[in-house]
């Protein structure tokens, strides 16, 4: 495996020795066998010359050890990349952007520090996965639901601070984040919000302190290692209904979204409603000329009578706007037997981690206005861009995160070992990013190989936003050691690396 940038063999061996002193030799990994697991096997760059390969990995057990590791990294000016559970598949996996990065693996910090049932919140460490939290709540019969992404393998902290999406009425989960503890790149520990008061009692209740709320400075950035985070949960509702609204033609995405908008804005539909292509089309067969339609998945939570009434209202609205729409629904009431909930979408919208099999993919997600024509135009635009690379496009999922916007996640196939194919995929995604940028649309989450391209789209006033991020970077992390290049934010001494 490579050396960290700028280090000699002997520096590197000293560095590893210092890491061993800090966390114990068992938790410092530098053999090829260990480091293979820190590479992104789902990257278009995997096993190519351009793949950023880690030089070592370190797994501290607690905040003090994280501080020591960060201080050591500062002394050696070694870049590190943080993994909470390091399963960021499709968006870069566990790997960083720079070759020779050290992985800071927080898997051993996996305590659920508090669950407060009365006030519906939890305080967790980075290594706590969604699945473990789900199990924890169920085994103790705690009547709280947690919003989850579809796979349960990931970390509540890692996914939430990447602006990960769930499917419940807390689907834009970052808005339910309440209080953080962060190890800054100089090794100091800081708590945000009411946590900044020693023994602050409202740390997980109230999200601000005096002055600006800064938690999102640590989301999708490289400004600090989050070591604790509060997250609001939702009380188990008395009734829950999981519903599907289906159309038969692709272009009906336009009325479908436009019909949903007032329902979502008016609070009738409250969850992160998703639209998927239906029936499911395999990769390689996607293209807008295929007939087929959409499945809009929505959920209702509350009193049984109210839930049923909302669903009836929604069906009426779709029947009026789009005769021929078909509907399906499942009503669940307390006492729930959550583990036996059948269909995967029903499980997800009840906050039960689930997962269907999926092929090798790389993801690109972007923000859209909540507007049917905008969604259709985007599909056509991305298809045109795909055709330039000999491929076709047909979208993947639209998430109505909030009543005001949608997030569209697109994926492109990768073929393990087929470098030509994967290079084409990469060029196509970069083309998607530029083509949509030219139309005033920006990405919200991309995989590591496209981070510079994504950030470059936000170019208003000579990239003032990026320059601002980098000014902050230089102040907070003067040695530029934490996750250089993450989302196109580079430390001063590496800016010439920008793609």
């Amino acid at each position, binding site marked *: 495996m490579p050396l960290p940038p700028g280090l000699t063999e002997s520096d590197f061996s000293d560095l590893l020795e210092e890491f061993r002193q800090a966390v114990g030799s068992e938790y410092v990994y530098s*053999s090829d*066998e*260990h480091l*293979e*697991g*820190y590479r992104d*096997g*789902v990257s278009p760059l995997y096993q190519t010359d351009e793949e950023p390969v880690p030089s070592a990995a370190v797994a501290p057990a607690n905040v003090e050890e994280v501080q020591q590791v960060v201080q050591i990294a500062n002394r050696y000016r070694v870049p590190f990349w943080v993994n909470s*559970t*390091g*399963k960021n*598949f499709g968006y870069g*996996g*566990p790997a960083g952007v720079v070759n020779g990065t050290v992985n800071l693996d927080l*898997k051993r910090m996996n305590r659920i520090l508090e669950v407060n049932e009365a006030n519906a919140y939890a305080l967790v460490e980075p290594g706590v*996965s969604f*699945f*473990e939290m789900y*199990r924890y709540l169920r085994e103790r019969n705690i009547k709280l639901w947690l919003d989850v992404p579809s*796979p*349960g*393998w990931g970390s509540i902290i890692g996914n939430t601070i990447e602006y990960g999406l769930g499917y419940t009425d807390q689907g834009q989960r970052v808005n339910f984040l309440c209080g953080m503890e962060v190890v800054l790149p100089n090794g100091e520990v800081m708590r945000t919000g009411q946590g900044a008061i020693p023994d602050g009692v409202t740390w997980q209740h109230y999200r601000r302190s005096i002055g600006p709320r800064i938690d999102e400075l640590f989301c999708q950035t490289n400004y600090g290692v989050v070591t604790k985070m509060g997250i609001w949960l939702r009380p188990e509702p008395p009734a829950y209904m999981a519903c599907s609204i289906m159309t038969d033609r692709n272009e009906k995405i336009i009325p479908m979204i436009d019909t949903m908008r007032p329902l979502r804005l008016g609070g009738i539909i409250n969850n992160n409603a998703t639209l998927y292509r239906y*029936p*499911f*089309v*395999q*990769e*390689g*067969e996607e293209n807008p000329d*295929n*007939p*087929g339609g959409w499945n809009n998945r929505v959920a209702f939570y509350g009193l049984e009578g109210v839930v049923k009434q909302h669903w009836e209202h929604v069906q009426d609205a779709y029947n009026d706007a789009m005769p021929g729409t078909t509907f399906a629904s499942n009503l669940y009431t307390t006492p729930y037997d959550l583990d036996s909930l059948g269909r995967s979408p029903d499980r997800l919208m009840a906050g039960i*981690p*689930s*997962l*269907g*099999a*999926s*092929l*090798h993919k790389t993801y690109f997600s972007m923000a859209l206005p909540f507007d049917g024509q905008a969604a259709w135009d985007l599909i056509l635009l991305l298809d045109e861009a795909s055709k330039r690379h000999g491929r076709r496009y047909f979208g993947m999922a639209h998430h109505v995160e909030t009543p005001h916007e949608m997030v569209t996640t697109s994926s492109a196939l990768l073929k*393990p*070992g087929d470098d030509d194919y994967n290079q084409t995929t990469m060029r196509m995604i970069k083309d998607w990013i530029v083509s949509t940028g030219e139309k005033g649309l920006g990405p919200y989450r991309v995989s590591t190989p496209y981070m510079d391209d994504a950030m470059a789209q936000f170019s208003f006033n000579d990239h003032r936003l990026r320059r601002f991020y980098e000014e902050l970077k230089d102040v907070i992390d003067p040695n530029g050691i934490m996750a250089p290049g993450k989302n196109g934010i580079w430390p001063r001494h590496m800016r010439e690396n920008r793609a």
Partner: protein
Amino acid sequence: MSDLLDRRQFLAKSAASVSVPILAHPLAAAAGQVRLSFDIIVVDERIGANEGLSRVARASGAQCLSIRGDLPRVWFDSLRGACLDRSTVIAGFTSDLDSEVMRAFARDVGYRQVGRLDISIDGETGRETVRRSMYSSLPSEFALASELENLVDLYLTSSPWQASRVAPGPTSDRHGPTQLAAWVIAPIRA
């Protein structure tokens, strides 16, 4: 694949304690016996169910664990615990995504994926179209990786691919090639 027979012969020679005769399998018959070093074989029954495989697993004393696309759940419920002894060897026939996920789970417990084959089976012809070893195994891992190849071969030949399972439907609903990954994880020796 040209070196597969050599590996099989290697295995046949080294087969000792837990040897399992696989009489129904022509290649195995040629080689005599196949030893299985896997303690657990995970099979995603939506894509990888295969009677021959289960029979061999059972006969060798390996525990055959059936999943339905829920590998993460099974990992947290049981497989992770099984790895705590740092000697359990686990093989799997799952989706390629689950194979990648397993690589990351293995990392968390000081294991590594020592062998992996990605297999693509054409939905219409039932023909195996791709079969590629993802890693170069270390000498100490060679036997495990070879056994995996052997098992994959058995999988593909002992009970013919069920064309009906992947029969083409209407254009928009047609199945593409079935992607299957076979993998094995084992503890990293210090």
